[in-house]
């Protein structure tokens, strides 16, 4: 069962218009920049995929990654917890002009909704957002004397994630805090596409040290020397 794909371009070739895509990373840590840029390149060359819904903690920074997707005009909606940042102009402009929709989700609820989707849990209760405007319209209930909000799972058609080591059956590890949303999104998408720095043979990752088991991953593409989003932003790179 060889899940390796030769290039990032081939890995993202099947993502259609209107797809809901989870993109791993928190800020610049663990962001699959090469997969995102391959998708932008495809959009620029073909006009597709367009009207994408992106699920990420943030809404992009500077002129690369998710910010470049937004700037390119291929994103119709963001589902995230923290679109605000020091250089989130791409999102800000489109949002304030009404060209992009926003579903704002508390960060822990976002993580748990994604995990729930991967785990076959259609709904769960959390104390987060109870009594706030983000809970408007959601069912609430008291358990053991405390009030909770019911939240639904959050699924995606595709997940683009970034691992450190990967093998051809899809087992993954992550580098430092680059783990963040990546293992959860791998579970929650119909098709999970992982870029990895090191592609190793099956057995090359100690079974006890696998973070994402291969069952959650559909494609593995090696990007041996991946760009780090924060470094690109700080050096003013534009894609």
């Amino acid at each position, binding site marked *: 069962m060889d899940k390796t794909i030769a290039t990032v371009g081939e890995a993202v070739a099947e993502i259609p218009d209107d797809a809901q895509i989870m993109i791993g990373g928190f800020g610049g840590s663990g962001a699959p920049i090469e997969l995102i840029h391959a998708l932008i390149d495809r959009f620029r060359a073909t006009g597709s995929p367009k009207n994408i819904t992106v699920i990420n903690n943030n809404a992009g920074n500077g002129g690369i990654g998710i910010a470049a997707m937004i700037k390119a005009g291929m994103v119709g909606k963001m589902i995230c917890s923290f679109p605000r940042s020091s250089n989130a102009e791409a999102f800000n402009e489109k949002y304030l002009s009404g060209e992009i929709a926003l579903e704002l989700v508390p960060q822990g609820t976002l993580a748990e909704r994604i995990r729930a989707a991967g*785990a076959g849990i259609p709904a769960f209760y959390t104390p987060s957002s109870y009594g706030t405007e983000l809970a408007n319209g959601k069912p609430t209930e008291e358990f053991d004397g405390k009030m909770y909000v019911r939240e639904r799972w959050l699924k995606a058609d595709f997940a683009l994630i970034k691992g450190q080591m990967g093998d051809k059956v899809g087992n993954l590890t992550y580098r430092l805090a680059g783990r963040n949303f990546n293992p959860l999104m791998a579970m929650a998408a119909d098709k999970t596409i992982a870029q990895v720095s090191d592609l190793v043979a099956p057995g090359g990752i100690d079974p006890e040290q696998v973070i994402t088991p291969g069952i959650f991953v559909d494609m593995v593409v090696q990007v041996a020397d991946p760009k780090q989003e924060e470094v690109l932003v700080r050096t003013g790179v534009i894609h």
Partner: protein
Amino acid sequence: MSDLNISEVALSNAQIAWRAAQDIEDGSYVNLGIGFPEMIAKFQPVGRDVTYHTENGVLGFGNAPLEGEEDWDLINAGKKAITLNPGASFFHHADSFAMVRGGHLDLAVLGAYQVAQNGDLANWRVGSKGVPAVGGAMDLVHGAKRVAVVTDHLTKDGKPKLVEACTFPLTGVGCVTRVYTSLAVVDIDGGKFILREKLPAMTLAQLQSVTCAKLHSDGKIGDLVVPEDL
């Protein structure tokens, strides 16, 4: 027809397992229930790459170790010692059942006391006596893309296991998609048993006479043929 000796023509457990194994797809993730279903792995067709999941947190396990070489920290859900194939992984029980409930398995195969024509399965207890035990069965019947059953067509005292409605306590509602019995291969679709294959030695009428619900057909009933030396 009434003098057909079922026990003479019925497939052995190994033959049922062999038949079920033929349908396991290349590249699939499979959970085989404790006991009889576990036998299916032995008959996995050559050239098909199958990854086996076990509820207690192992993906990609292989054959049993040689006797005396067991590591009892490395077991499957049936508490039997296993080995690992390259690319295996460990994870905790919540992640393991996320794989099950979350629709990540391609196939789960279980045993059965009864299967109803609407896909209801009863396989965890037959009465109120004794010590009840459920294990992972109630989870395994949900989430896998296909939920199959391997079973004798009749109980040991000759009662049909394919029924209109289960009388034993249910394991899951409307969950079974295919049944491999000692006499037939039956799909469940739209609340009906659809007969796919039957033993060539039996007529449809004979098979129907030992089945407690209507066997439907969409016109293509194949022969259930398995190796004789199993």
